[in-house]
C-alpha cells in the first residue's frame, strides 16, 4: 500500500514523500515530524521510495530513493535509505536558503540560541542531543540558517543523527525499524526530537552564544572564552559554500559574531558539557 506523506518544509525547501511501502513511509514521516506541514505547490519536490519485496516472506529486499524521478540513493536496509534521505535534505536546505547556513548544532533557551559550529565527528550531534534532553529547545544538529541581515535563526529540526560512538549515552533513544520490517542493526540512529522530549522544538530564535565544541576522550571538560575575531574565522570555516560568496558571507557572519559571547568547549564528559552551557546561558 502506498503511503503519501504531507508536504513538509525544511527551512525554505518543501518536499513530499511517497513510499511504495506503507510502513516505511509512515516511519520516515514520523522521523521528520518536527518539520512544519505545508500545502504542496509547484515548487514542492516529489520524493519517492521504491522497494523490491521478496515473494517468500514479503520483506523488502532493496530500496531506491528518487527526487523528482532522479535516483539519489539505494540500499538494502531501511535505515540506509533514511540516512541518504536525511543527507539529501541537508544539502537541499543549504542550496535553497538565500542566506548563510553554518555547519553547527544549535539549541535555544528563552529565544536565545547557542550555536555550536564544529567539524564532522566532533560530537556536536551528541552534545545537541544531551542539551535537548536537559531541557534546551532543539533548533538543529546540522545546519543553522541565519536570516540575512540579522542574528535570527530559522530552525531546521531534522531528526538528530547519532553515530554508534554515542549510543551508550542515549539508550532510551534507540529507534525501532519500520513496523513489520526485519532489519539488521542500524549504522546510524535517526532520532525524532519528540522522542527525546515532548515539545522540544524551538521557534525562531536569535544567536547569542557561539560555542565551538570538540570532544577529547578523557579530557577535563572546559569552557574557555575566545575573541570574536577568532570566532569569526572559525565560524567562516564552518559555513557551507563560504567560498562561493565569501565577502557577503563574512559580512553576514560578522553581524552574528558581534551579537554573541564566544567560547571554545573541550568536551570530556557530556554531562559536564551540558552543565557548562547551562551556566553560560544562565549568567548572560
Amino acid at each position, binding site marked *: 500500500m502506498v503511503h503519501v506523506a504531507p508536504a513538509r518544509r525544511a527551512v525554505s525547501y518543501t518536499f513530499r514523500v511517497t513510499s511504495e511501502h506503507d510502513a516505511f513511509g509512515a516511519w520516515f514521516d514520523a522521523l521528520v515530524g518536527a518539520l512544519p506541514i505545508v500545502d504542496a505547490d509547484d515548487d514542492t519536490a516529489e520524493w519517492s521510495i521504491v522497494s523490491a519485496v521478496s515473494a517468500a516472506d514479503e520483506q523488502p529486499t532493496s530500496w531506491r530513493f528518487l527526487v523528482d524521478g532522479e535516483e539519489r540513493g539505494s540500499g538494502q536496509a531501511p535505515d540506509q535509505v533514511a540516512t541518504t534521505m536525511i543527507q539529501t535534505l541537508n544539502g537541499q536546505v543549504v542550496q535553497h536558503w538565500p542566506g548563510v547556513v553554518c555547519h553547527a548544532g544549535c539549541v535555544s533557551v528563552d529565544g536565545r540560541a547557542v550555536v555550536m559550529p564544529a567539524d564532522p565527528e566532533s560530537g556536536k550531534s551528541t552534545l545537541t542531543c544531551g542539551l535537548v534532553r536537559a531541557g534546551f529547545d532543539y533548533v538543529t544538529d546540522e545546519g543553522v540558517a541565519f536570516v540575512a541581515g540579522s542574528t535570527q535563526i530559522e530552525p531546521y529540526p531534522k531528526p538528530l543523527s547519532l553515530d554508534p560512538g554515542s549510543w551508550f549515552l542515549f539508550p532510551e533513544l534507540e529507534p525501532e525499524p519500520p513496523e513489520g520490517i526485519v532489519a539488521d542493526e542500524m549504522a546510524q540512529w535517526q532520532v525524532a526530537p519528540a522522542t527525546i522530549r515532548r515539545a522540544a522544538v524551538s521557534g525562531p530564535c536569535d544567536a547569542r552564544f557561539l560555542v565551538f565544541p570538540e570532544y577529547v576522550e578523557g579530557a577535563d571538560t572546559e569552557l574557555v572564552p575566545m*575573541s*570574536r*575575531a*577568532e570566532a*569569526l*574565522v572559525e565560524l*567562516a*570555516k564552518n559555513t557551507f559554500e*563560504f*567560498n562561493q560568496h*565569501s*565577502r557577503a558571507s*563574512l*559580512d553576514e557572519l*560578522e553581524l552574528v*559574531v*558581534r551579537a554573541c559571547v564566544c567560547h571554545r568547549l573541550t568536551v570530556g564528559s557530556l554531562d559536564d558539557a551540558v552543565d557548562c552551557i547551562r551556566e553560560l546561558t544562565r549568567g548572560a
Partner: protein
Amino acid sequence: MPDPVSDRSIDGRFAPARGEHVHTVVLDGEGVLLDEQENRLHLLNVSATLLWQLYDGATTLDELATDLSTELGGDPAAILADLVTISRHLGAEGLLEGVVPEREDDA
C-alpha cells in the same frame, strides 16, 4: 604602475598598501582579513591590526617607525625592524598591494 616587489625586498623605504582584494573586518581591535583572490582568511592581533590600518600606500615604514616612536616611545630602529618583519609576513601572504611572495627557489 610600478613593478611588483618581492616580500623579501621590503625595507624602510617601502610604503605598504592594503591589498585591494583584501576585505577587512575589525572586531574588538583584532582584524580578520579576507583575501578574496585566494578565498583565505587571516587573523591579526591588535598590534598588527593597528599597523594594517595605517598601510595607506603613501607612508613609508621609516616614517611609520618615526611616528610610532614619537607617540609611544621606544627605539625607532627596533620599531622599524618589527614593522619590516610584519610587512614582509603580510607580503608573503599576498595581502599587500604590489608585493609578490618570493618562493624559495627564486632566491
